[in-house]
């Protein structure tokens, strides 16, 4: 019994240390973004020579949103002789195929990849792999079907590849339906903290900005030469980030390359989305934890940041266990009531404002973006934390089963709402 109590106490202390380390990380990033010298992106480069670009738009039952994305892409100011758009229709059962084909008939630079074979592997990584085989561009840029790229966005993203060290580029995602309800308001705040502060700070500090799988691009040759996307991993974006960094490339973050997305409007849809992200991210963690530590292409600070980033979707599960741990210790008489309450308050506050949607970063982002009224919604993030803890923990357990059983993963698509 004594050994068990010691283990429980040790685990509790380890979790507190992890919490403190993440809080320090968030504080450093917020401070950097607010007060330190900012790196500029390559957006100001004017160049008459741009690379050949293929825009890939993965689609599965996107009839509500698809035309908006394609219309936005048609309006872009990229040289048509160097632009190709491939819509990847991945086993859609609605009118996605018809809509896509109608655009292909009208515009010769829009092509369709219809994936209809019931036996073939589904999902975004498999679709991207197949589309890359037919792509003519040297640079691949990906937009999800609910995104609305602005006129000069492709130019901004493509400019980053002038730098030979850049393997991928990432733009900034902004919810178009931020004022729809409380969940979209909270997601807007999370995005503000995540992009305006977290990603930009990591870019400033030369750490590991993350390629996010959409509103971003990568060098086709690098990915094709290393076997394409791993179809057993749901988070192909995070996998790409770590693959590039361990190969010696970097991901460039361009805060000015902004693009609207449609954020989930119901808790159920958001829960499934975050569970999928957690599952995929943890699959990447299992694959790259060791490689990140031993990589010769990463600096010491990049390795530290890389490990923190890899563990982001494991920490809520660890905290979930820590709360259970504290309850057990209380009932076996190892914590008196004041300490248990203190621990609960400590966890509650951290969970509310310090973990998945880091309070410091969101506050800093809200200041930088000039969000005033939305700041009042910050305390509501505590609800979403407990919500996220539940779904992320389930995603973490899914990932463990994936790795142990080597099963094929299935893509759980986020529901679209088709807002104007």
């Amino acid at each position, binding site marked *: 019994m004594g050994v068990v109590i010691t283990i429980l106490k040790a685990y509790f202390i380890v979790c507190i240390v992890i919490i403190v380390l993440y809080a320090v990380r968030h504080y450093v990033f917020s401070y950097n973004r607010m007060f330190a010298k900012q790196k500029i992106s390559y957006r100001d480069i004017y160049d008459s020579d741009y690379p050949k670009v293929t825009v890939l738009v993965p689609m599965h039952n996107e009839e509500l949103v698809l035309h908006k994305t394609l219309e936005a892409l048609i309006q872009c100011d990229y040289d048509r002789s160097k632009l190709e758009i491939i819509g990847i229709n991945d086993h859609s059962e609605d009118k996605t195929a018809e809509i896509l084909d109608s655009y292909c008939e009208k515009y010769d630079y829009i092509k369709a990849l219809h994936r209809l074979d019931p036996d073939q592997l589904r999902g975004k990584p498999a679709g991207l792999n197949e589309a890359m085989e037919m792509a003519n561009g040297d640079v691949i840029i990906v937009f999800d079907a609910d995104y609305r790229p602005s006129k000069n966005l492709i130019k901004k993203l493509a400019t980053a590849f002038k730098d030979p060290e850049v393997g991928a580029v990432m733009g900034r995602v902004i*919810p178009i339906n931020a*004022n729809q309800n409380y969940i979209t308001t909270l997601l*807007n705040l999370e995005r503000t903290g995540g992009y305006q502060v977290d990603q930009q700070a990591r870019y400033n500090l030369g750490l590991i900005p993350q390629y996010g799988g959409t509103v971003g691009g990568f060098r086709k040759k690098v990915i094709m030469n290393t076997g394409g996307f791993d179809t057993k991993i749901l988070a192909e974006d995070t996998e790409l980030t770590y693959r590039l960094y361990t190969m010696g490339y970097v991901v460039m973050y361009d805060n000015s390359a902004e*693009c609207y997305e449609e954020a989930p409007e119901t808790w159920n849809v958001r829960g499934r989305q975050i569970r999928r992200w957690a599952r995929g991210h943890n699959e990447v963690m299992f694959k790259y934890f060791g490689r990140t530590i031993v990589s010769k292409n990463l600096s010491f600070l990049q390795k530290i940041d890389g490990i923190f980033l890899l563990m982001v979707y494991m920490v809520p599960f660890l905290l979930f266990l820590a709360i259970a741990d504290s309850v057990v210790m209380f009932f076996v008489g190892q914590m008196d009531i004041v300490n248990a309450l203190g621990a609960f308050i400590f966890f509650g506050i951290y969970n509310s404002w310090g973990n998945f949607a880091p309070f410091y970063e969101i506050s800093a982002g809200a200041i930088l973006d000039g969000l005033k009224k939305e700041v009042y919604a910050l305390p509501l993030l505590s609800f979403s934390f407990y919500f996220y803890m539940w779904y992320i923990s389930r995603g973490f357990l899914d990932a463990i089963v994936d790795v142990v059983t080597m099963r094929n993963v299935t893509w759980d698509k986020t529901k679209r709402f088709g807002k104007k």
Partner: protein
Amino acid sequence: MIGIFIILVVCFIVMTSFPFILALRTPKDEQATLVVRSDNVKDPRYFPKAFKEILNKALEKGVFDEFLILSRPEKFVYSEKVNDNVIHDLVICRDGFIAVGPARFEKEIYSENTVVLDEQIEARAVSAQKLLLMNKCKIVRWCDGEKETYVGTGCDLGVSTTSDDYMQVMEDCVFHRLYAPQVDVMRCGDSKQIKREKRIVDSSILQELKNADETSCDVAAKDISIIYENSNIKGNIITKDNLVIKEGARISGHIKSRKNITIEKNVIIDGNVFADGNVIIKSDVRVTGNVFSQSDVYVGYNSIIGQYGKIKSVIAKSHVFLCENITVFGYIGCDDKGYTLQKEKFLELLV
């Protein structure tokens, strides 16, 4: 003890619930989505183009009580010459316009012909076909000579100075952004002797570079710090260290350093140059691509950046220092200030 505990619990509940009440009372319909302009297009001559568009629309609508309706009603003068020291109104002229200094124009000057600003003139903004700024002029916002822009010594060029064809800038000027398909930086007195054709890089040199057999390094040489004299390299150079490219080296590929890059005399680079630190380009260097620094960029005597007929950029997070007798084909920009310098002053800076 129990009393204190109860008070603490009550305080905790009140303090944690109060923000929730605020949060839940946040009016949903007043929350704004961050604005992303879907029609946003990059254009280095955005200011003059936008101004001309607004002005032409206003001129089409006509004059109302001596006012033109631009973004707001503006008083204006139609004139080829003004005599006041301070001109409060917008100046419009169909023919050429000559401003005699010292004087201050608080609004824009627009001409469909040539505009000459005499020494020590201060103007908010100027739009002309051909623009001549004499010595020590000051531009507050922007100026543009659609066909040609000539800038004398000691001028402050404000936020943006542009031309759709050609620009010549003398020494001791300060700027933020310069743009023209060809920008020449000259020493005062030399400009008349120098013809634009002289600045075109001999294309046979570049072709020779592309065809070179010798390959010293390929994609990523992470710890390289020196490219030796007269080396001939095909491939990209990516390094974490300071990089020095010695005299006479020829490189066909892009260069990136996490620290500083120094490019010595007579080097030819057919590619882009990126550095997280300074980029120091010494004399007689040819870079056919863009030059980008997260710190300062120095472009030395008789160097050429870009290629005739193409647009390239020289960009620095902090400062750009341009020595006399250099050419940039395209855009030059920095967050702090850029300077044009005589050779002697430029060399002093490097020391």
